Protein backbone atom coordinates (compact mmCIF):
# COMPACT_ATOMS: atom_id res chain seq x y z
CA UNK A 1 0.00 0.00 0.00
CA UNK A 2 2.86 2.35 0.85
CA UNK A 3 5.98 2.86 -1.21
CA UNK A 4 9.26 1.36 -0.09
CA UNK A 5 11.31 3.71 2.08
CA UNK A 6 8.41 6.15 2.09
CA UNK A 7 9.57 7.53 5.43
CA UNK A 8 12.76 8.91 3.93
CA UNK A 9 11.87 12.58 3.53
CA UNK A 10 14.83 13.18 1.24
CA UNK A 11 13.83 10.48 -1.22
CA UNK A 12 10.04 10.48 -1.25
CA UNK A 13 8.67 12.01 -4.42
CA UNK A 14 6.73 15.26 -4.01
CA UNK A 15 3.61 15.62 -6.13
CA UNK A 16 0.47 17.73 -6.35
CA UNK A 17 -2.72 15.97 -5.30
CA UNK A 18 -4.67 18.33 -7.55
CA UNK A 19 -2.64 17.02 -10.50
CA UNK A 20 -4.12 13.60 -9.76
CA UNK A 21 -7.53 15.24 -9.80
CA UNK A 22 -6.98 16.80 -13.23
CA UNK A 23 -5.59 13.59 -14.68
CA UNK A 24 -8.51 11.67 -13.21
CA UNK A 25 -11.03 13.95 -14.93
CA UNK A 26 -9.31 13.49 -18.28
CA UNK A 27 -9.29 9.72 -17.83
CA UNK A 28 -13.01 9.77 -17.06
CA UNK A 29 -13.68 12.09 -19.98
CA UNK A 30 -11.97 9.70 -22.39
CA UNK A 31 -14.38 6.95 -21.39
CA UNK A 32 -17.49 9.04 -21.03
CA UNK A 33 -18.45 11.91 -23.33
CA UNK A 34 -20.79 13.29 -20.69
CA UNK A 35 -17.92 14.45 -18.50
CA UNK A 36 -17.58 18.25 -18.60
CA UNK A 37 -15.78 20.84 -16.47
CA UNK A 38 -16.61 24.37 -15.41
CA UNK A 39 -13.87 27.01 -15.21
CA UNK A 40 -13.89 29.65 -12.48
CA UNK A 41 -10.93 31.76 -13.54
CA UNK A 42 -8.35 29.64 -11.72
CA UNK A 43 -8.56 26.87 -14.25
CA UNK A 44 -4.89 25.97 -14.58
CA UNK A 45 -4.16 26.06 -10.89
CA UNK A 46 -6.99 23.71 -9.97
CA UNK A 47 -6.19 21.48 -12.96
CA UNK A 48 -9.53 21.49 -14.72
CA UNK A 49 -7.28 23.02 -17.38
CA UNK A 50 -6.23 19.48 -18.28
CA UNK A 51 -9.75 18.71 -19.44
CA UNK A 52 -9.98 22.10 -21.22
CA UNK A 53 -6.82 21.25 -23.17
CA UNK A 54 -7.86 17.67 -23.99
CA UNK A 55 -11.53 18.36 -24.79
CA UNK A 56 -12.01 22.11 -25.36
CA UNK A 57 -15.64 21.64 -26.42
CA UNK A 58 -16.45 20.14 -23.02
CA UNK A 59 -15.04 23.02 -21.01
CA UNK A 60 -17.31 25.83 -19.86
CA UNK A 61 -15.66 29.05 -18.70
CA UNK A 62 -17.93 30.75 -16.16
CA UNK A 63 -15.61 33.52 -14.98
CA UNK A 64 -15.36 34.43 -11.31
CA UNK A 65 -18.90 33.37 -10.47
CA UNK A 66 -18.91 30.44 -8.07
CA UNK A 67 -22.59 30.64 -7.16
CA UNK A 68 -23.73 30.76 -10.75
CA UNK A 69 -21.42 27.89 -11.70
CA UNK A 70 -22.70 25.59 -8.97
CA UNK A 71 -26.30 25.90 -10.12
CA UNK A 72 -25.27 25.70 -13.78
CA UNK A 73 -23.51 22.44 -12.94
CA UNK A 74 -26.69 21.15 -11.35
CA UNK A 75 -28.62 22.09 -14.50
CA UNK A 76 -26.07 20.34 -16.69
CA UNK A 77 -26.35 17.19 -14.63
CA UNK A 78 -30.14 17.20 -14.81
CA UNK A 79 -29.74 16.80 -18.58
CA UNK A 80 -27.29 13.93 -18.16
CA UNK A 81 -23.87 15.58 -17.98
CA UNK A 82 -21.27 14.82 -15.32
CA UNK A 83 -19.92 18.25 -14.42
CA UNK A 84 -16.76 18.95 -12.40
CA UNK A 85 -16.69 22.35 -10.69
CA UNK A 86 -13.40 23.32 -9.11
CA UNK A 87 -11.82 26.37 -7.55
CA UNK A 88 -10.18 27.11 -4.20
CA UNK A 89 -11.97 25.52 -1.24
CA UNK A 90 -12.72 28.89 0.34
CA UNK A 91 -14.88 29.74 -2.67
CA UNK A 92 -16.29 26.28 -3.40
CA UNK A 93 -17.99 25.18 -1.15
CA UNK A 94 -17.32 28.48 0.68
CA UNK A 95 -18.96 31.01 -1.61
CA UNK A 96 -21.61 28.80 -3.15
CA UNK A 97 -22.86 26.75 -0.24
CA UNK A 98 -26.56 27.50 -0.65
CA UNK A 99 -26.36 26.60 -4.33
CA UNK A 100 -24.58 23.41 -3.29
CA UNK A 101 -27.26 22.66 -0.72
CA UNK A 102 -30.32 23.20 -2.89
CA UNK A 103 -29.36 23.06 -6.58
CA UNK A 104 -26.99 20.14 -6.08
CA UNK A 105 -27.66 18.15 -2.91
CA UNK A 106 -31.42 18.53 -2.59
CA UNK A 107 -31.71 17.67 -6.30
CA UNK A 108 -29.24 14.79 -5.91
CA UNK A 109 -27.56 16.32 -8.93
CA UNK A 110 -24.64 14.35 -10.28
CA UNK A 111 -22.15 17.17 -9.69
CA UNK A 112 -18.54 16.70 -8.62
CA UNK A 113 -17.13 19.71 -6.83
CA UNK A 114 -13.57 20.23 -5.76
CA UNK A 115 -11.92 22.59 -3.33
CA UNK A 116 -8.25 23.01 -4.02
CA UNK A 117 -5.95 24.93 -1.69
CA UNK A 118 -7.44 23.51 1.47
CA UNK A 119 -5.53 23.82 4.72
CA UNK A 120 -3.16 26.21 6.43
CA UNK A 121 -0.34 25.01 4.16
CA UNK A 122 -1.73 27.30 1.46
CA UNK A 123 0.84 29.63 3.04
CA UNK A 124 1.65 33.20 1.90
CA UNK A 125 -1.81 34.07 0.50
CA UNK A 126 -2.97 34.18 4.11
CA UNK A 127 -6.21 33.60 5.98
CA UNK A 128 -8.62 34.51 3.19
CA UNK A 129 -7.34 31.70 0.98
CA UNK A 130 -6.82 28.94 3.54
CA UNK A 131 -9.85 26.65 3.45
CA UNK A 132 -10.19 25.28 6.98
CA UNK A 133 -13.95 24.98 7.21
CA UNK A 134 -14.87 23.12 4.05
CA UNK A 135 -15.21 19.67 5.60
CA UNK A 136 -17.64 21.06 8.17
CA UNK A 137 -19.58 22.81 5.41
CA UNK A 138 -19.94 19.69 3.30
CA UNK A 139 -20.15 16.94 5.88
CA UNK A 140 -23.47 18.28 7.16
CA UNK A 141 -25.21 18.16 3.77
CA UNK A 142 -27.53 15.23 3.01
CA UNK A 143 -26.71 13.23 -0.16
CA UNK A 144 -23.17 14.60 -0.38
CA UNK A 145 -20.10 12.37 -0.26
CA UNK A 146 -16.96 13.98 1.15
CA UNK A 147 -13.48 12.81 0.17
CA UNK A 148 -10.08 14.13 1.31
CA UNK A 149 -7.33 12.07 -0.35
CA UNK A 150 -3.85 11.92 1.16
CA UNK A 151 -1.63 12.21 -1.91
CA UNK A 152 -1.43 12.36 -5.70
CA UNK A 153 -2.24 8.71 -6.37
CA UNK A 154 -5.17 8.63 -3.99
CA UNK A 155 -6.49 11.92 -5.38
CA UNK A 156 -6.62 10.35 -8.82
CA UNK A 157 -8.38 7.25 -7.52
CA UNK A 158 -10.86 9.36 -5.57
CA UNK A 159 -11.63 11.41 -8.69
CA UNK A 160 -12.21 8.26 -10.73
CA UNK A 161 -14.44 6.81 -8.00
CA UNK A 162 -16.39 10.07 -7.80
CA UNK A 163 -16.95 10.01 -11.55
CA UNK A 164 -18.18 6.42 -11.51
CA UNK A 165 -21.00 6.91 -9.02
CA UNK A 166 -24.24 8.79 -9.55
CA UNK A 167 -24.58 11.63 -7.07
CA UNK A 168 -22.82 14.66 -5.65
CA UNK A 169 -19.26 14.33 -4.35
CA UNK A 170 -16.92 16.88 -2.77
CA UNK A 171 -13.18 16.38 -3.27
CA UNK A 172 -10.63 18.22 -1.16
CA UNK A 173 -6.99 18.93 -2.06
CA UNK A 174 -4.13 21.03 -0.73
CA UNK A 175 -1.96 23.51 -2.56
CA UNK A 176 1.53 22.20 -2.02
CA UNK A 177 3.34 19.29 -3.60
CA UNK A 178 3.33 16.68 -0.85
CA UNK A 179 4.86 13.22 -0.40
CA UNK A 180 3.49 10.77 -2.96
CA UNK A 181 3.78 7.81 -0.62
CA UNK A 182 0.92 5.49 -1.57
CA UNK A 183 1.29 3.00 -4.39
CA UNK A 184 -0.72 2.63 -7.57
CA UNK A 185 -2.02 -0.68 -6.19
CA UNK A 186 -3.24 0.68 -2.86
CA UNK A 187 -6.99 0.07 -2.63
CA UNK A 188 -9.45 2.93 -2.67
CA UNK A 189 -13.20 2.83 -2.22
CA UNK A 190 -15.74 5.37 -1.07
CA UNK A 191 -16.66 4.54 2.53
CA UNK A 192 -13.41 2.75 3.20
CA UNK A 193 -10.49 3.61 5.43
CA UNK A 194 -7.13 1.88 5.22
CA UNK A 195 -4.83 0.83 8.03
CA UNK A 196 -1.47 2.19 6.84
CA UNK A 197 0.36 0.96 9.91
CA UNK A 198 -0.74 -1.49 12.60
CA UNK A 199 -0.36 -0.86 16.34
CA UNK A 200 -1.98 -1.63 19.66
CA UNK A 201 -1.41 1.39 21.93
CA UNK A 202 -3.18 4.23 20.18
CA UNK A 203 -5.00 5.00 16.92
CA UNK A 204 -4.31 7.99 14.72
CA UNK A 205 -7.02 8.73 12.16
CA UNK A 206 -6.13 11.27 9.53
CA UNK A 207 -6.96 12.61 6.11
CA UNK A 208 -5.12 14.62 3.51
CA UNK A 209 -1.40 15.27 3.36
CA UNK A 210 -1.05 15.20 7.15
CA UNK A 211 -1.45 11.41 7.06
CA UNK A 212 2.18 11.37 6.02
CA UNK A 213 3.12 13.38 9.12
CA UNK A 214 1.09 10.94 11.22
CA UNK A 215 3.16 8.08 9.81
CA UNK A 216 6.36 9.96 10.63
CA UNK A 217 5.08 10.54 14.15
CA UNK A 218 4.21 6.85 14.49
CA UNK A 219 7.72 5.91 13.40
CA UNK A 220 9.23 8.29 15.94
CA UNK A 221 6.99 6.92 18.69
CA UNK A 222 7.84 3.33 17.78
CA UNK A 223 11.42 4.12 18.75
CA UNK A 224 10.10 5.08 22.18
CA UNK A 225 8.16 1.83 22.40
CA UNK A 226 4.72 3.19 21.55
CA UNK A 227 2.87 1.18 18.92
CA UNK A 228 0.65 3.47 16.91
CA UNK A 229 -2.02 2.34 14.49
CA UNK A 230 -2.35 4.82 11.63
CA UNK A 231 -5.62 4.89 9.73
CA UNK A 232 -6.05 6.86 6.54
CA UNK A 233 -9.65 7.99 6.24
CA UNK A 234 -10.08 9.75 2.89
CA UNK A 235 -13.79 9.02 2.99
CA UNK A 236 -15.05 11.44 5.59
CA UNK A 237 -18.60 10.83 4.58
CA UNK A 238 -19.54 8.03 4.54
CA UNK A 239 -17.11 7.15 7.30
CA UNK A 240 -15.68 3.63 7.55
CA UNK A 241 -17.30 2.94 10.89
CA UNK A 242 -16.17 -0.65 11.19
CA UNK A 243 -12.46 -0.03 10.71
CA UNK A 244 -12.48 2.94 13.06
CA UNK A 245 -14.53 1.32 15.83
CA UNK A 246 -12.53 -1.91 15.68
CA UNK A 247 -9.27 0.00 15.99
CA UNK A 248 -10.54 2.20 18.83
CA UNK A 249 -11.72 -0.91 20.68
CA UNK A 250 -8.27 -2.42 20.32
CA UNK A 251 -6.17 0.62 21.28
CA UNK A 252 -8.56 2.49 23.57
CA UNK A 253 -7.25 5.92 22.55
CA UNK A 254 -7.65 8.01 19.41
CA UNK A 255 -6.01 11.07 17.85
CA UNK A 256 -7.53 12.76 14.81
CA UNK A 257 -5.24 14.61 12.41
CA UNK A 258 -6.38 17.02 9.71
CA UNK A 259 -5.69 20.43 8.20
CA UNK A 260 -9.10 21.75 9.18
CA UNK A 261 -10.76 23.52 12.09
CA UNK A 262 -11.02 21.17 15.05
CA UNK A 263 -14.74 21.88 15.08
CA UNK A 264 -16.69 20.11 12.37
CA UNK A 265 -14.03 18.14 10.54
CA UNK A 266 -12.87 14.54 10.46
CA UNK A 267 -12.13 14.61 14.20
CA UNK A 268 -15.69 15.63 14.92
CA UNK A 269 -17.01 12.88 12.66
CA UNK A 270 -14.88 10.28 14.45
CA UNK A 271 -15.85 11.52 17.90
CA UNK A 272 -19.55 11.44 16.99
CA UNK A 273 -19.10 7.85 15.91
CA UNK A 274 -17.13 6.78 18.96
CA UNK A 275 -19.45 8.54 21.39
CA UNK A 276 -22.19 6.32 20.03
CA UNK A 277 -20.40 3.03 19.43
CA UNK A 278 -17.28 2.90 21.55
CA UNK A 279 -16.38 5.91 23.73
CA UNK A 280 -12.62 6.44 24.00
CA UNK A 281 -10.41 9.36 25.02
CA UNK A 282 -9.60 11.50 22.01
CA UNK A 283 -7.26 14.32 21.08
CA UNK A 284 -7.78 16.59 18.09
CA UNK A 285 -4.92 17.79 15.92
CA UNK A 286 -6.19 20.56 13.66
CA UNK A 287 -6.71 24.30 13.42
CA UNK A 288 -7.49 25.51 16.95
CA UNK A 289 -10.58 27.63 16.18
CA UNK A 290 -8.60 30.46 14.58
CA UNK A 291 -8.06 32.15 11.24
CA UNK A 292 -4.70 31.55 9.62
CA UNK A 293 -2.15 34.07 8.34
CA UNK A 294 0.66 34.44 5.82
CA UNK A 295 3.84 32.42 6.13
CA UNK A 296 5.57 29.36 4.83
CA UNK A 297 3.58 26.11 5.19
CA UNK A 298 6.03 24.62 7.74
CA UNK A 299 5.99 27.78 9.85
CA UNK A 300 2.21 27.80 9.93
CA UNK A 301 1.80 24.07 10.55
CA UNK A 302 4.13 24.44 13.52
CA UNK A 303 2.54 27.59 14.93
CA UNK A 304 -1.00 26.28 14.75
CA UNK A 305 -0.09 22.76 15.85
CA UNK A 306 -0.41 20.48 12.84
CA UNK A 307 3.12 19.12 12.53
CA UNK A 308 4.85 15.88 13.49
CA UNK A 309 5.84 17.21 16.88
CA UNK A 310 2.27 18.19 17.78
CA UNK A 311 1.00 14.78 16.71
CA UNK A 312 3.57 13.06 18.94
CA UNK A 313 2.53 15.26 21.87
CA UNK A 314 -1.16 14.56 21.25
CA UNK A 315 -0.49 10.82 21.20
CA UNK A 316 1.27 11.05 24.54
CA UNK A 317 -1.55 13.10 26.02
CA UNK A 318 -4.23 10.69 24.90
CA UNK A 319 -2.31 7.64 26.16
CA UNK A 320 -2.03 9.30 29.57
CA UNK A 321 -5.81 9.62 29.58
CA UNK A 322 -6.42 5.91 28.94
CA UNK A 323 -8.25 4.27 31.82
Amino acid at each position, binding site marked *: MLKENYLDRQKVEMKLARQGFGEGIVELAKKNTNVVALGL*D*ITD*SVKTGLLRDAFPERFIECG*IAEQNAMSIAAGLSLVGKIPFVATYG*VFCPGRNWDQLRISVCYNKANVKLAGAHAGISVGP*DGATHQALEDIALTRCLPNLIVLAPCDYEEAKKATLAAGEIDGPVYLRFGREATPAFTTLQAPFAIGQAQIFRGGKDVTIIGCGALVYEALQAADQLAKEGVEVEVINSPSIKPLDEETIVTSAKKTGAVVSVEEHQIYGGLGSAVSELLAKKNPAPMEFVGMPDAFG*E*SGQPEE*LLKKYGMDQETIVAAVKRVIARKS
Partner: protein
Amino acid sequence: MDIDLPKEANKIRQDIIEMLLEAKSGHSAGSLGMADVFTALYLGGVAKHDPKNPAWEERDRVVLSNGHICPVLYATLAHAGYFPREELKTLRKFGSRLQGHPNRFVLPGLEASTGSLGQGLSLACGMAWALRLDQKRNHVWCLTGDGEQDEGQIWEAAMFAGKYKLSNITQIIDRNNIQIDGHTEDVMPLEPLKEKYESFGWHVMETDGHDIEEITHVLNETKKIFEKPSVVIAHTIPGYGVDFMEWKSEWHGKVPCAEEAKNALNQLRSLCGNITSEHE
Protein backbone atom coordinates in the same frame (compact mmCIF):
# COMPACT_ATOMS: atom_id res chain seq x y z
CA MET B 1 4.02 70.97 -0.12
CA ASP B 2 4.58 70.22 -3.77
CA ILE B 3 5.16 66.55 -4.46
CA ASP B 4 6.01 65.17 -7.85
CA LEU B 5 3.20 62.64 -8.18
CA PRO B 6 4.41 60.74 -11.28
CA LYS B 7 7.77 60.31 -9.60
CA GLU B 8 6.07 59.09 -6.44
CA ALA B 9 4.03 56.57 -8.47
CA ASN B 10 7.20 55.36 -10.11
CA LYS B 11 8.85 54.84 -6.73
CA ILE B 12 5.78 52.95 -5.57
CA ARG B 13 6.20 50.69 -8.60
CA GLN B 14 9.83 50.10 -7.71
CA ASP B 15 8.83 49.21 -4.19
CA ILE B 16 6.21 46.78 -5.53
CA ILE B 17 8.85 45.00 -7.60
CA GLU B 18 11.18 44.73 -4.62
CA MET B 19 8.38 43.53 -2.35
CA LEU B 20 7.27 40.84 -4.75
CA LEU B 21 10.82 39.69 -5.41
CA GLU B 22 11.38 39.30 -1.69
CA ALA B 23 8.00 37.65 -1.05
CA LYS B 24 8.43 35.16 -3.91
CA SER B 25 4.66 35.13 -4.43
CA GLY B 26 1.93 37.68 -5.00
CA HIS B 27 0.25 39.68 -7.74
CA SER B 28 2.37 41.81 -10.06
CA ALA B 29 0.24 43.02 -12.97
CA GLY B 30 -2.69 44.56 -11.11
CA SER B 31 -0.48 46.10 -8.45
CA LEU B 32 1.76 47.88 -10.97
CA GLY B 33 -1.19 48.92 -13.09
CA MET B 34 -2.94 50.70 -10.24
CA ALA B 35 0.02 52.69 -8.86
CA ASP B 36 -1.09 55.93 -10.52
CA VAL B 37 -4.64 55.64 -9.22
CA PHE B 38 -3.39 54.97 -5.69
CA THR B 39 -0.98 57.87 -5.92
CA ALA B 40 -3.81 60.19 -6.91
CA LEU B 41 -6.10 58.82 -4.21
CA TYR B 42 -3.69 58.93 -1.27
CA LEU B 43 -0.98 61.42 -2.25
CA GLY B 44 -2.85 63.65 -4.68
CA GLY B 45 -5.29 64.98 -2.13
CA VAL B 46 -8.35 63.06 -3.36
CA ALA B 47 -9.13 60.96 -0.28
CA LYS B 48 -9.38 62.68 3.07
CA HIS B 49 -7.03 60.86 5.42
CA ASP B 50 -4.35 61.39 8.04
CA PRO B 51 -1.46 58.92 8.25
CA LYS B 52 -0.68 60.15 11.76
CA ASN B 53 -4.23 59.44 12.86
CA PRO B 54 -5.56 56.42 10.94
CA ALA B 55 -8.69 56.30 13.09
CA TRP B 56 -9.59 59.96 12.39
CA GLU B 57 -13.37 60.33 12.51
CA GLU B 58 -13.48 62.54 9.43
CA ARG B 59 -11.43 60.24 7.21
CA ASP B 60 -12.74 58.81 3.95
CA ARG B 61 -13.09 55.04 3.83
CA VAL B 62 -11.09 53.12 1.24
CA VAL B 63 -12.11 49.54 0.60
CA LEU B 64 -9.81 47.38 -1.55
CA SER B 65 -12.28 44.82 -2.82
CA ASN B 66 -9.72 43.26 -5.15
CA GLY B 67 -7.56 42.50 -2.13
CA HIS B 68 -4.96 40.60 -4.13
CA ILE B 69 -3.43 43.86 -5.40
CA CYS B 70 -2.60 44.90 -1.82
CA PRO B 71 1.12 45.39 -2.65
CA VAL B 72 0.18 48.69 -4.29
CA LEU B 73 -1.96 49.66 -1.30
CA TYR B 74 0.78 48.78 1.18
CA ALA B 75 3.47 50.61 -0.80
CA THR B 76 1.25 53.69 -1.10
CA LEU B 77 0.38 53.67 2.60
CA ALA B 78 4.10 53.49 3.42
CA HIS B 79 4.81 56.41 1.09
CA ALA B 80 1.99 58.35 2.73
CA GLY B 81 3.62 57.74 6.12
CA TYR B 82 1.40 55.12 7.76
CA PHE B 83 4.35 52.87 8.55
CA PRO B 84 8.05 52.66 7.69
CA ARG B 85 8.94 51.79 4.11
CA GLU B 86 11.47 49.22 5.33
CA GLU B 87 8.57 47.09 6.49
CA LEU B 88 7.40 46.63 2.89
CA LYS B 89 9.90 43.83 2.41
CA THR B 90 8.13 41.69 5.00
CA LEU B 91 5.19 41.20 2.60
CA ARG B 92 3.61 37.74 2.96
CA LYS B 93 6.18 36.58 5.47
CA PHE B 94 5.46 34.81 8.74
CA GLY B 95 4.59 37.34 11.43
CA SER B 96 4.33 40.28 9.02
CA ARG B 97 1.70 43.01 9.25
CA LEU B 98 1.62 42.91 5.45
CA GLN B 99 -0.58 39.88 4.97
CA GLY B 100 -1.04 38.23 1.57
CA HIS B 101 -4.49 39.82 1.52
CA PRO B 102 -5.36 42.84 3.69
CA ASN B 103 -6.04 42.23 7.38
CA ARG B 104 -7.46 45.35 8.99
CA PHE B 105 -6.46 44.38 12.51
CA VAL B 106 -2.72 44.30 11.97
CA LEU B 107 -1.82 47.23 9.72
CA PRO B 108 -2.86 50.87 10.20
CA GLY B 109 -4.79 52.42 7.32
CA LEU B 110 -6.80 49.36 6.30
CA GLU B 111 -10.56 49.76 6.56
CA ALA B 112 -11.61 46.20 5.77
CA SER B 113 -10.13 42.74 5.48
CA THR B 114 -10.68 41.52 1.95
CA GLY B 115 -9.53 38.93 -0.56
CA SER B 116 -12.67 37.09 -1.53
CA LEU B 117 -13.69 38.92 -4.70
CA GLY B 118 -17.05 40.60 -5.00
CA GLN B 119 -17.62 41.47 -1.36
CA GLY B 120 -15.99 44.89 -1.09
CA LEU B 121 -18.63 46.86 -2.96
CA SER B 122 -21.31 45.58 -0.58
CA LEU B 123 -19.10 46.50 2.39
CA ALA B 124 -18.72 49.96 0.88
CA CYS B 125 -22.50 50.25 0.46
CA GLY B 126 -22.98 49.41 4.12
CA MET B 127 -20.45 52.05 5.14
CA ALA B 128 -21.95 54.68 2.84
CA TRP B 129 -25.49 54.04 4.01
CA ALA B 130 -24.45 54.26 7.67
CA LEU B 131 -22.38 57.41 7.15
CA ARG B 132 -25.29 59.09 5.43
CA LEU B 133 -27.65 58.15 8.24
CA ASP B 134 -25.20 59.74 10.65
CA GLN B 135 -25.09 62.83 8.41
CA LYS B 136 -21.36 62.44 7.92
CA ARG B 137 -19.52 63.85 4.92
CA ASN B 138 -16.90 61.08 4.69
CA HIS B 139 -16.64 59.63 1.20
CA VAL B 140 -16.33 55.89 0.51
CA TRP B 141 -13.85 54.79 -2.18
CA CYS B 142 -14.15 51.20 -3.33
CA LEU B 143 -11.58 49.65 -5.64
CA THR B 144 -12.61 46.64 -7.70
CA GLY B 145 -11.10 44.56 -10.49
CA ASP B 146 -12.67 44.13 -13.90
CA GLY B 147 -12.58 40.33 -13.64
CA GLU B 148 -14.16 40.82 -10.25
CA GLN B 149 -17.22 42.23 -12.02
CA ASP B 150 -18.07 38.60 -12.92
CA GLU B 151 -19.31 38.11 -9.37
CA GLY B 152 -23.08 38.36 -9.01
CA GLN B 153 -22.66 40.11 -5.67
CA ILE B 154 -21.16 43.14 -7.47
CA TRP B 155 -24.44 43.62 -9.29
CA GLU B 156 -26.49 43.07 -6.16
CA ALA B 157 -24.48 45.88 -4.59
CA ALA B 158 -24.81 47.96 -7.74
CA MET B 159 -28.61 47.72 -7.53
CA PHE B 160 -28.54 48.56 -3.84
CA ALA B 161 -26.37 51.63 -4.34
CA GLY B 162 -28.65 52.74 -7.18
CA LYS B 163 -31.79 52.24 -5.11
CA TYR B 164 -30.47 54.22 -2.14
CA LYS B 165 -28.73 56.80 -4.33
CA LEU B 166 -25.50 56.40 -2.40
CA SER B 167 -23.78 59.46 -3.80
CA ASN B 168 -21.10 59.18 -1.13
CA ILE B 169 -19.63 56.12 -2.91
CA THR B 170 -17.12 56.14 -5.73
CA GLN B 171 -16.26 52.75 -7.14
CA ILE B 172 -13.01 52.66 -9.10
CA ILE B 173 -12.79 49.75 -11.51
CA ASP B 174 -9.32 48.65 -12.59
CA ARG B 175 -10.18 48.14 -16.26
CA ASN B 176 -6.99 46.33 -17.26
CA ASN B 177 -8.73 43.74 -19.44
CA ILE B 178 -7.08 40.76 -17.79
CA GLN B 179 -7.98 38.17 -15.20
CA ILE B 180 -6.37 34.81 -14.44
CA ASP B 181 -7.76 32.68 -17.26
CA GLY B 182 -7.03 35.34 -19.89
CA HIS B 183 -8.62 38.46 -21.32
CA THR B 184 -11.81 39.56 -19.62
CA GLU B 185 -13.74 39.71 -22.88
CA ASP B 186 -12.84 36.06 -23.56
CA VAL B 187 -13.46 34.79 -20.04
CA MET B 188 -16.71 36.67 -19.45
CA PRO B 189 -17.47 39.71 -21.60
CA LEU B 190 -18.17 42.86 -19.58
CA GLU B 191 -18.88 45.33 -22.33
CA PRO B 192 -20.75 47.58 -22.55
CA LEU B 193 -19.64 48.19 -18.97
CA LYS B 194 -20.41 51.90 -18.92
CA GLU B 195 -23.97 51.34 -20.11
CA LYS B 196 -24.46 48.52 -17.62
CA TYR B 197 -23.67 50.78 -14.70
CA GLU B 198 -25.69 53.62 -16.15
CA SER B 199 -28.70 51.37 -16.38
CA PHE B 200 -28.17 50.42 -12.73
CA GLY B 201 -28.49 54.09 -11.77
CA TRP B 202 -24.81 55.01 -11.48
CA HIS B 203 -22.99 58.11 -12.67
CA VAL B 204 -20.20 56.73 -14.87
CA MET B 205 -16.91 58.44 -15.66
CA GLU B 206 -13.82 57.12 -17.40
CA THR B 207 -10.18 58.02 -17.12
CA ASP B 208 -6.78 57.14 -18.45
CA GLY B 209 -5.51 55.15 -15.50
CA HIS B 210 -1.97 56.44 -15.94
CA ASP B 211 -2.57 60.17 -16.19
CA ILE B 212 -2.48 61.26 -12.56
CA GLU B 213 -3.78 64.73 -13.32
CA GLU B 214 -6.80 63.33 -15.14
CA ILE B 215 -7.41 60.67 -12.48
CA THR B 216 -7.31 63.29 -9.75
CA HIS B 217 -9.70 65.53 -11.63
CA VAL B 218 -12.18 62.74 -12.39
CA LEU B 219 -12.15 61.34 -8.86
CA ASN B 220 -12.72 64.80 -7.43
CA GLU B 221 -15.60 65.34 -9.88
CA THR B 222 -17.39 62.27 -8.52
CA LYS B 223 -17.54 63.88 -5.09
CA LYS B 224 -19.75 66.58 -6.61
CA ILE B 225 -22.34 64.16 -7.95
CA PHE B 226 -25.52 64.14 -5.92
CA GLU B 227 -28.39 61.67 -6.10
CA LYS B 228 -26.28 58.89 -7.64
CA PRO B 229 -23.38 56.60 -6.76
CA SER B 230 -20.37 57.10 -9.03
CA VAL B 231 -18.14 54.65 -10.79
CA VAL B 232 -14.89 55.52 -12.48
CA ILE B 233 -13.68 53.10 -15.11
CA ALA B 234 -9.91 53.50 -14.93
CA HIS B 235 -8.34 52.25 -18.13
CA THR B 236 -5.03 50.82 -17.01
CA ILE B 237 -2.29 48.71 -18.50
CA PRO B 238 -1.62 45.62 -16.40
CA GLY B 239 2.05 45.48 -15.42
CA TYR B 240 2.47 49.17 -16.41
CA GLY B 241 6.09 50.34 -16.59
CA VAL B 242 7.67 46.93 -17.11
CA ASP B 243 7.60 45.96 -20.77
CA PHE B 244 7.63 42.18 -20.36
CA MET B 245 4.69 42.29 -17.95
CA GLU B 246 2.44 44.76 -19.75
CA TRP B 247 -0.86 43.37 -21.02
CA LYS B 248 0.04 39.80 -20.04
CA SER B 249 -2.48 37.87 -17.97
CA GLU B 250 0.32 35.42 -17.01
CA TRP B 251 1.65 38.18 -14.79
CA HIS B 252 -1.59 38.43 -12.81
CA GLY B 253 -0.28 36.19 -10.05
CA LYS B 254 3.38 35.69 -10.96
CA VAL B 255 6.36 37.44 -9.40
CA PRO B 256 9.66 38.39 -11.01
CA CYS B 257 12.79 36.32 -10.41
CA ALA B 258 16.00 38.18 -9.47
CA GLU B 259 16.98 38.73 -13.08
CA GLU B 260 13.54 39.95 -14.12
CA ALA B 261 13.33 42.22 -11.09
CA LYS B 262 16.64 43.82 -12.01
CA ASN B 263 15.43 44.41 -15.52
CA ALA B 264 12.11 45.80 -14.22
CA LEU B 265 13.83 48.15 -11.78
CA ASN B 266 16.15 49.40 -14.52
CA GLN B 267 13.20 50.16 -16.75
CA LEU B 268 11.40 51.99 -13.97
CA ARG B 269 14.48 53.92 -12.86
CA SER B 270 15.27 55.12 -16.36
CA LEU B 271 11.64 56.13 -16.80
CA CYS B 272 11.93 57.95 -13.51
CA GLY B 273 15.00 59.76 -14.86
CA ASN B 274 13.03 60.94 -17.87
CA ILE B 275 10.21 62.19 -15.79
CA THR B 276 12.33 64.13 -13.36
CA SER B 277 14.85 65.60 -15.78
CA GLU B 278 12.85 68.73 -16.45
CA HIS B 279 12.64 69.52 -12.75
CA GLU B 280 16.22 68.91 -11.80
